[in-house]
């Protein structure tokens, strides 16, 4: 759960991102009848270090941060702001969660012809601690 807290904390405290999406930052899915632009985030993979008889609480997760917008230019600006908030967030404590480091992995752009929404899925790998 700490990975969600950390990512939400890092994105939520990024002024440049907040200026673009306000508080429209959601775990997993957009709400019904969403207002655009907005950002969602979800875990797509994860694991932890393993010791001989107990685990040290050193964890990692791949997090997908998805940007949803009616404009590609606007989406690109949001992706840039989100990436700046997460990429290489190193040795910081966010909302009580220790983040050891965070790496941007890749972006995938796409467009939904029916809703005319542009979106980008950005993948990050975050290393963090569990109690």
């Amino acid at each position: 759960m700490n990975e969600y807290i950390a990512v939400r904390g890092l994105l939520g405290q990024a002024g440049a991102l907040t200026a673009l999406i306000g508080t429209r930052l959601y775990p997993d899915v957009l709400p019904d009848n969403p207002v655009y632009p907005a950002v969602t985030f979800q875990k797509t993979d994860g694991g932890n270090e393993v010791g001989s008889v107990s685990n040290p609480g050193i964890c990692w997760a791949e997090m997908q941060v998805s940007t949803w917008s009616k404009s590609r230019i606007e989406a690109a600006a949001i992706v840039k702001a989100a990436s700046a908030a997460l990429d290489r967030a190193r040795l910081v404590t966010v909302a009580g969660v220790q983040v050891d480091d965070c790496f941007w992995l890749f972006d995938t752009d796409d467009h939904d012809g029916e809703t005319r929404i542009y979106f980008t899925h950005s993948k990050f790998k975050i290393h963090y601690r569990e109690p």
Partner: protein
Amino acid sequence: MTQTETITAQIVTILKGAGLTVRDDTDALYSFEYKPCIVIDVGDELADPVFGQGYIYWNLNFDLLIGADGENPKLAPESTRKAAHEALYADRQLGLSDFVVDLNVKQIQRAIDAENPAAGITRVAYQIKYRVEEGTA
């Protein structure tokens, strides 16, 4: 307790006595553990039998995996490596002179962790020669 277990425990005691963080519960460092940290990787042993005298001389290999973070990762573990080496070489019989004959350093290898680009990992190979009576371990 075998002599190998006794020697390993003594190495841990010596390194901790030098103020170093040491563990031996895995054979590798974690990418993002608190550093500097040393992992003792106990390796293989090769016997030098002394025929007719009732003794076997064993050559025990062990590695110190020394991890430290720094802007120059490959050299970040150097101060810890120095402290560990000096602590071990302060008494090359490790305080176990009744059966440990000698300690020798063999090789140093340096790398950067695959996950943590700031973490340097230095592997220092040592070999300890110790003696046991035939029929004991």
